[in-house]
């Protein structure tokens, strides 16, 4: 074709395009008369022009959206029986005209949508018509009616719809400053209309605010119901490639994942669309910012990214709010386009305006937090089947919310409680994520060892996919904001590792082991153990019984057993792990050292202090060299070593190690961190063992606070800290506080660790001791008894833990007058420990007390003597055990009438205790109490009076109803009587006796003493 001819054709084509259909025919005829071939060429161009579905018509981007559509200048006069008034808008699929019907009978305005492309074949027209008929039956006050339809003269299908004059729903909310509740009610109207259509099997497919108008009267009208399906090329074009189906008709911001993926579109797709609309109505923004993103990117976001919690992003949108907020009213959403860019905010210079804005935002976010968050997120689930089952269900849930009843979204969410768990596990979850991500690197080594380097890339990729999926699939409702549900990830991860890596046992074991460590970090020891054992099995089978991997697995399982209190088996497995590792490595490494330290802790718990100390020493050497003394593992070992020395009676060594350990930490500047919490707790324990009680208590309290911030309230580490704090409070004499904390710790331990976990048992006994001090003997006895029952089954008779428990159980029984029971318990303890054990010091003391209570002064005397002899041999001078025995012995001397002999001893005890305890402290009271009696016995009632008054002051933290208060009052009365203040003295003697009787009964050994004292005073 010549250029000349080509230019001519182009000009003629221009004319044709400018002409009306009739005019076109005229041009063609004119050209044909002149040059038939030119007419043929022109006709071919017009035909090509009218053609659709070519490469350039790929809807959207690469093609012109408006291609093949009439120019605005080519506004048609009429469409069917309607007279076109103006163009309302145009989009990728067609043009919408405002038109009027005026046939003399009635007048109405309609919107006519003319669809580009065309239904040309009879078959296509039939399908278009059939679909149109279905839509025409949709009769609902909130759905814009489809009146009519047809095909234009030039072959384009059109639809005639109810014309709605209104505002898009989001704009309506904003302009009318609707409250959250009003917005919810308006939304419910929308959802009900959608539900109506769904029941007639019509899916909207393109729900968005611009398709939901609200008229001036506040009436909601949904536009374009089901139109998207009619517009679908598969509907009209019939043979459009499958990949195009349904893709181009979505509005990215409102597209559901299944639309992006080209999966079937169902009513659930509309539920998702409603979710986005609700999100936007409540928060003033869309869940995803897709502006300016490449399609690949937004497709990925829709399919993979989790929407934010509405309450985390909501901004007040009403005009008033925007005004008060000091933001240019709707400066950021002028045309319904939301600009997250802060530059769109126009700040004003009134500070109060900003404050009001912040208040409003906070109020709005508070309203959304919780139920509304959950409801919105449930509509926005990626998986259609996990959304609300119908639009009506959303309405029901929103109504439940408005009525303050529990919502389905909450009950439905299996992860609801878990989420609370996870949200308190931020640190652990972070750790979990780190460990999970490190899997990729971690198992590369395993692969190389397995000699499978060729498959390494493939496997690494699979592993990466796995991890990616795990994080991606994490359910929004199970996580708070950016916090991922560690539990959910792990459970899925573990299941998939078991399923998908079966043919790669080496890698499978490595991954299982890693996941087990994450469970371990979360304190879920049983689950961790299960996986660690599975990894161990795999390694034993595939990598050899004495492989390093097997050694590591033995170590891991052993540690997990230790955490669960299975000490003996833990010792066995940790020992095995050490043995293998020793034989396989040339020089000690940090893994060996850690295992040594773990084993040492277990040996220490079993009372095998010498072995423990030796292992701690070895481990510390290696850890110092390889990790440095500041490493947490080294710190733990250091502390273990100090404790072992202490318990071995190697006090100087212990002291030196304590100093080293303490010197490393500045407790004032610690920030919340697991290692810091551990250090705080260790230091608290060191201080307590060194009798620096008032330094220990605040540290233990800080440790509790830190761990509560870091972990779930029932995490073992929290319970451990609480238990330690409880003891610290007891040590500083705050018995009521101590009892409260220990009761709390025990409650948590019972629930999360189980009745028989070592920490539960320890905590229970600690609570028993404080109950004992408070004089609540029956409770104390019952509490400790249940601990003994467990320990009897679990532990060897000579296990120190069992001995101490028996001893602790004996005390309240003694005090409560159940002397046979007390003696039985002390005897069992003595039989187990033997007469030469350090633990027997207090057991012999207990037996002596029982003998004394029975009036067996001779027996008591020899038992006290034996106890003190053992203490002198085993304990450093001034040990608290010794003080206890000395104070108890004083009561014997008093009973013997030799009380005055004890004055020096008790003065000495008081001095020692005064260095440890600050007044008022019941421990000082318990010393002053017999001291006063001794002064009285020694004929110095004035001194006795002063001392006894001090004793009462120091008993401030035990109840007034305690028999000790009664006894000390009685003594004071005797002292007053001795000084001639008879009336006052007798009153105290009587009241004191009454208090004792009321507390421990008239037949108790305590009341016999006060009764005798009262009788003596009366007789004097």
């Amino acid at each position, binding site marked *: 074709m010549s250029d000349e001819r*080509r230019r001519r054709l*182009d000009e003629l*084509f*221009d004319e044709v*395009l400018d002409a009306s259909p009739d005019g076109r025919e005229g041009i063609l005829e004119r050209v044909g008369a002149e040059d038939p071939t030119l007419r043929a060429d022109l006709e*071919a*161009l*017009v*035909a*090509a*022009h*009218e*053609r*659709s*579905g*070519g*490469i*350039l018509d*790929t*809807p*959207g*981007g*690469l*093609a*012109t*959206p*408006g*291609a*093949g559509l009439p*120019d605005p200048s080519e506004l048609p006069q009429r469409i069917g029986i309607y007279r076109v008034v103006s163009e309302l808008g145009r989009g*990728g699929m067609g043009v919408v005209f405002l038109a009027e019907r005026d046939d003399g009978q009635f007048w109405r305005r309609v919107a006519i949508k003319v669809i580009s492309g065309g239904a*040309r074949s009879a078959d296509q027209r039939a399908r278009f018509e059939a679909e149109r008929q279905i839509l025409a039956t949709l009769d609902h006050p909130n759905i814009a009616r489809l009146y009519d339809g047809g095909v234009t003269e030039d072959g384009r299908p059109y639809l005639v719809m109810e014309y709605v004059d209104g505002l898009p729903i989001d704009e309506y909310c904003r302009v009318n400053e609707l409250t959250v509740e009003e917005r919810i009610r308006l939304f419910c109207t929308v959802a009900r209309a959608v539900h109506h259509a769904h029941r007639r099997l019509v899916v909207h497919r393109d729900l968005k605010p611009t398709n939901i108008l609200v008229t001036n009267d506040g009436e909601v009208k949904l536009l374009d119901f089901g139109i998207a399906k009619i517009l679908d090329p598969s509907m009209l*074009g*019939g*043979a*459009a*490639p499958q*990949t*195009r189906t349904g*893709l*181009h008709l979505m509005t*990215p911001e409102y597209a559901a994942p299944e639309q*992006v993926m*080209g999966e079937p579109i169902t009513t659930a797709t509309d539920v998702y669309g409603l979710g986005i609309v609700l999100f936007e109505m409540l928060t003033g923004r869309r869940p995803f910012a897709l502006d300016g993103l*490449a*399609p*690949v*990117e937004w*497709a990925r976001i829709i399919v993979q990214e989790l929407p934010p919690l509405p309450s985390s992003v909501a901004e007040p949108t009403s005009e008033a709010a925007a005004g008060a907020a000091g933001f240019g009213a709707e400066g950021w959403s002028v045309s319904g386009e939301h600009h997250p860019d802060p530059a769109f905010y126009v700040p004003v210079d009134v500070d109060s305006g900003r404050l009001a804005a912040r208040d409003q935002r906070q109020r709005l976010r508070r309203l959304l937090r919780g139920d509304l968050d959950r409801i919105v997120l449930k509509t926005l689930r990626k998986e259609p089947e996990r959304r609300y089952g119908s639009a009506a269900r959303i309405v029901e849930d929103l109504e439940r919310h408005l009525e303050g009843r529990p919502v389905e979204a909450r009950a439905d969410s299996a992860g609801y409680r878990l989420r609370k768990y996870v949200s308190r596990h931020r640190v652990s979850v972070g750790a979990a994520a780190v460990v999970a991500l490190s899997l990729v690197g971690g198992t590369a080594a395993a692969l190389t060892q397995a000699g499978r380097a060729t498959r390494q890339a493939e496997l690494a990729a699979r592993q990466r996919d796995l991890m990616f999926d795990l994080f991606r699939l994490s359910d929004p409702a199970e996580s708070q904001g950016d916090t991922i549900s560690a539990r959910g990830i792990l459970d899925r991860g573990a299941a998939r590792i078991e399923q998908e890596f079966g043919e790669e046992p080496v890698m499978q074991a490595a991954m299982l082991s890693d996941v087990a460590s994450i469970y371990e970090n979360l304190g879920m020891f049983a689950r961790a153990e299960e996986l660690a054992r599975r990894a161990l099995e795999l390694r034993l089978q595939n990598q050899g019984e004495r492989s390093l991997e097997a050694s590591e697995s033995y170590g891991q399982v052993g540690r997990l057993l230790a955490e669960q209190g299975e000490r003996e088996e833990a010792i066995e497995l940790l020992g095995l792990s050490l043995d293998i590792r020793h034989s396989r490595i040339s020089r000690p490494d940090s893994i060996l050292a850690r295992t040594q330290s773990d084993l040492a802790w277990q040996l220490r718990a079993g009372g095998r202090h010498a072995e423990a100390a030796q292992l701690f020493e070895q481990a510390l050497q290696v850890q110092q060299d390889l990790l440095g003394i500041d490493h947490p593992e080294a710190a733990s070992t250091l502390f273990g070593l100090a404790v072992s020395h202490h318990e071995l009676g190697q006090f100087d060594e212990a002291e030196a190690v304590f100093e080293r350990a303490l010197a490393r930490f500045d407790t004032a500047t610690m920030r919340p961190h697991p290692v810091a919490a551990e250090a705080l707790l260790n230091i608290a324990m060191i201080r307590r063992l060194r009798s620096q009680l008032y330094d220990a208590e605040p540290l233990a309290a800080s440790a509790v606070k830190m761990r509560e911030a870091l972990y779930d309230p029932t995490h073992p580490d929290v319970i451990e800290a609480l238990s330690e704090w409880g003891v610290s409070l007891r040590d500083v004499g705050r018995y009521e506080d101590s009892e409260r904390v220990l009761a709390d710790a025990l409650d948590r331990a019972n629930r999360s660790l189980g009745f028989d976990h070592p920490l539960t048992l320890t905590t229970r006994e600690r609570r028993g001791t404080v109950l004992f001090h408070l004089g609540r003997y029956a409770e104390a006895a019952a509490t400790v008894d249940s601990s003994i029952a467990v320990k009897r089954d679990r532990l060897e008779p000579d296990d120190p833990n069992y001995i101490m428990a028996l001893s602790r159980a004996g005390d309240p029984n003694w005090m409560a007058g159940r002397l046979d029971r007390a003696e039985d318990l002390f005897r069992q303890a003595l039989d187990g420990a033997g007469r030469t054990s350090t633990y027997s010091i207090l057991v012999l003391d207990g037996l002596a007390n029982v003998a004394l209570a029975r009036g067996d002064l001779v027996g008591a005397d020899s038992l006290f003597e034996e106890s003190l002899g053992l203490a002198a041999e085993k304990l450093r001078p001034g040990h608290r055990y010794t003080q206890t025995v000395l104070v108890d012995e004083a009561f014997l001397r008093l009973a013997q009438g030799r009380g005055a002999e004890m004055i020096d001893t008790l003065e000495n005890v008081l001095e020692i205790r005064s260095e440890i305890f600050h007044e008022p402290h019941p421990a000082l009271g318990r010393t002053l109490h017999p001291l006063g009696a001794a002064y009285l016995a020694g004929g110095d009632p004035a001194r006795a009076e002063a001392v006894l008054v001090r004793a009462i002051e120091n008993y401030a933290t035990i109840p007034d109803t305690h028999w000790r208060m009664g006894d000390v009052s009685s003594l004071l009365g005797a002292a007053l009587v001795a000084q001639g203040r008879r009336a006052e003295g007798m009153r105290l003697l009587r009241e004191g006796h009454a208090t004792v009787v009321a507390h421990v009964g008239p037949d108790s050994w305590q009341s016999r003493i006060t009764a005798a004292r009262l009788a003596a005073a009366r007789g004097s």
Partner: protein
Amino acid sequence: MRMDGNQNGLRGDVTQLLEAVRGGDARAMDRLVPLVYEELRALARRELHREQQGHTLHATALVHEAYIKLAGSAVPASDRAHFLAIASRAMRQILVDHARRRKAAKRGGDMVCTTLADAGAPVEFRPDELIALDAALEQLEPRQRQVVEFRFFAGMEEKEIADVLGVTDRTVRREWVKARAWLYRSMYPDGPSGSTATR
């Protein structure tokens, strides 16, 4: 290529060149085209390498990425339009080369996948169809050809094209409509009834 050296320097170059192009400096255009072209090819190679099957290209994403890499994001919109105009030519060549290789590799049935600029998930094209389009484009008047290249291969907006070409929006629209008819006339000679169903 030069990317590995001083990327900031290169970015500065590109920004300056774009300014010069906007100012009507034809030599600047000569220097800019190879930069853009090379970058796009490198990105395309990387993309193809990344995709195991080796037959998908995300056209618009490539152009955008090249633009960000070469020019950065803080460039005036008019420069962006000029860049896209240059990139459109390069994209056409890359895509068509790619289609030819597909076809030569006797995998003619495979689709060449590109991405729509603003409204779509990946859409596939037959290599034959792209090659036919390429050939048909050569027969067009230069301005119509440019409109198609800008719009189809670089996803430029009507207004951007109008700015680059120095014409009105309406002219761009009209040129597109006409170019489309010319192209279809030669690409689909079986006339308007030859719908996609027969392809």
